[in-house]
């Protein structure tokens, strides 16, 4: 990205983008890093300061009760709200494997009876 976030330490993210089954594309983001910060913090920062169109699921915001913010970080399925950022390498973020992808990091995780049809 063109503009560095303010503050000294940063973390680097590579985030899978695109709707439906479009070919894989990754956007690189540089985000502020503070001790204890999470992947969810970084995604919310990107939404507010770099790209408001980044689609992701989250609800309870770090209480880890809603279980909505599941995604894959470096190929491992985790919760964004409990996964700490690291500053020494680029973290690669993908939507959940094996699910229908709707957009960016959002998959169809709704129970089938809760969808409009």
């Amino acid at each position, binding site marked *: 990205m063109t503009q560095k976030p303010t503050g000294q330490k940063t973390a680097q993210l590579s985030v899978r983008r695109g709707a*439906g089954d479009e070919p894989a594309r990754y956007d690189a983001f540089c985000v502020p890093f503070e001790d204890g910060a999470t992947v969810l913090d970084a995604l919310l920062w990107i939404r*507010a300061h770099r790209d*408001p*169109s980044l*689609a992701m699921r989250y609800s309870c*915001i770090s209480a*880890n009760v*809603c279980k909505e913010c599941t995604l894959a970080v470096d190929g491992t399925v985790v919760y964004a709200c409990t996964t700490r950022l690291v500053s020494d390498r680029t973290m690669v973020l993908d939507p959940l494997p094996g699910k229908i992808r709707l*957009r960016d990091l959002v998959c169809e995780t709704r129970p089938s009876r809760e969808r409009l049809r």
Partner: protein
Amino acid sequence: MHLVTDVLIIGAGGAGMYAAIAAARAGAAQVLLIDKSLVGRGGATIMAQMTVAAALAEESDDDWRWHLDDTLVAGRGLCDPALAAVLCEEAPLRIREMGEWQVGWARRDSGRVAQVTAPGHSRPRCCYVDFLNTGPAVAATLRRQVSRIDAIRRVSNLTVTDLVINNGAVVGAVALDNASGEPVTIAATATIIATGGLTRIYRRNSASANMGGDGYALALQAGAPLVDMEFVQFFPIGHLAPRLVGMDPIMWDPFRYKLGGRLLNGAGEEFLARYGSEETDAYTTPRDIASYAITKEVAAGRGSPHGGVYLSFEHLPAAALEAAFGPVIERLARNGIDLARAPVEVSPIAHYHMGGIVVDQRMASGVPGLYAAGEAVGGANGANRLSGNAIPEALVFGERAGRFAAGAAPAAGWRDSSAVEAVERIRELGEGRSGTVAAAALLDELRAVMADDVGPLRTAAGLERALDRLGDLRAALGDVAIAPGRACNPALADWFELRASLVAAEAVTRAALARRESRGAHQREDFPDSIPELAKSQRVVMNNCGRIAASPGQ
């Protein structure tokens, strides 16, 4: 897409799910339960840590009238006594019913339901499932019940943007289907707002993402008045530092029930006594007083490094901590917290909204066809909610709203022309548009405005400044950029959230400016005393030009 239902329920937390169950039980053939988040996984219910107040009389002699007495005292003279009475009288019915549905209330060895004494209660009255797990258990139990009822249709990720009015009555809603980005119209005989509160409009909050105050904006725009909007409950000891993840920031509450703990200012001094609390080892200070005391200590330069105060358990033996909280101690250790060796920092965090939609005992608003339930309702808790009253409020008011809405006679029929403007707005914004600012950034700014000037300590100058800044944000709605692509477009959803949250924020701020005294959760630095003649509720209304005004109550 056009849907038709008997009862439309907007919001699927505890109140919405109970309303759906009750509406079906009362004979509604079609119940539509929708949420902008996921059904039964967003909202406040699932976030509840522990206490649920009900006069079950399992641990000691109790009576719902005593629960009512405590509720009215906590409400600082402003509770609607009829609504508070409904809440206290029917809480045991709902809590017992949840028990029959296997929610798993904690029991003593004797088999009795365990009840603890929470701050403000005159006796042990608060039951729980597990000390950090009550909300998730309540939500899971209601999800299970809802899923067993064929009459209830559930839809997740459907955001109501506007209510549809015909001849002065609410006849349904227009919604944004987040997955497709397309508008959906919903014709309903009765509509229940169960969207929860507005604490998400504060920088530090314990809210789910879907609690930006949508329901208040919908009600005002339909012509329904709000009441007690100036009273936002700040949970006094929200976690502040060190950074804690995977646990709700209000999780220190159960620790204090079990072990007491000491609140200390930055100099390590106990300070609650300076603010009229007699708290010693037990956890007894009401939330409004504790939040005020902490905020004042910080303002006086006696705060902790991150701008709060210390909560210390260092005086307790490590074995006592381990015995009380075994596995949780490990979760804390993973966050670098060792309670035996160092205190944590805490500070007030927006937690619950006392204000809300004016309803009668059937949960009907003054607008035909429109009902409300749960935290979205105003009045039962006055100027300060008693600990443990939020979950019973969700269940009791939800049950009533569902039952009475199911029996409602049609007020007016659906009319496409009344929905056109809202439908077209969704279509037009979904085309995408260029702009200079992101709604997500403006939402952050809104949270800063509310935290800075409409928080636990208020002044006329600060509230006027907040109104100016809210006006600027409202003007900026027209400058928001929306990237093209309708499906799952967060910029589109954010625009609607910002629009609704600005209405809710203005309602709080105007009511706070109009109340020229201090009472409960509303503390004015420029009017520090409670004035007996002002012990009455204010209402907030919106006129047909969208102007929001507060007026003294009756």
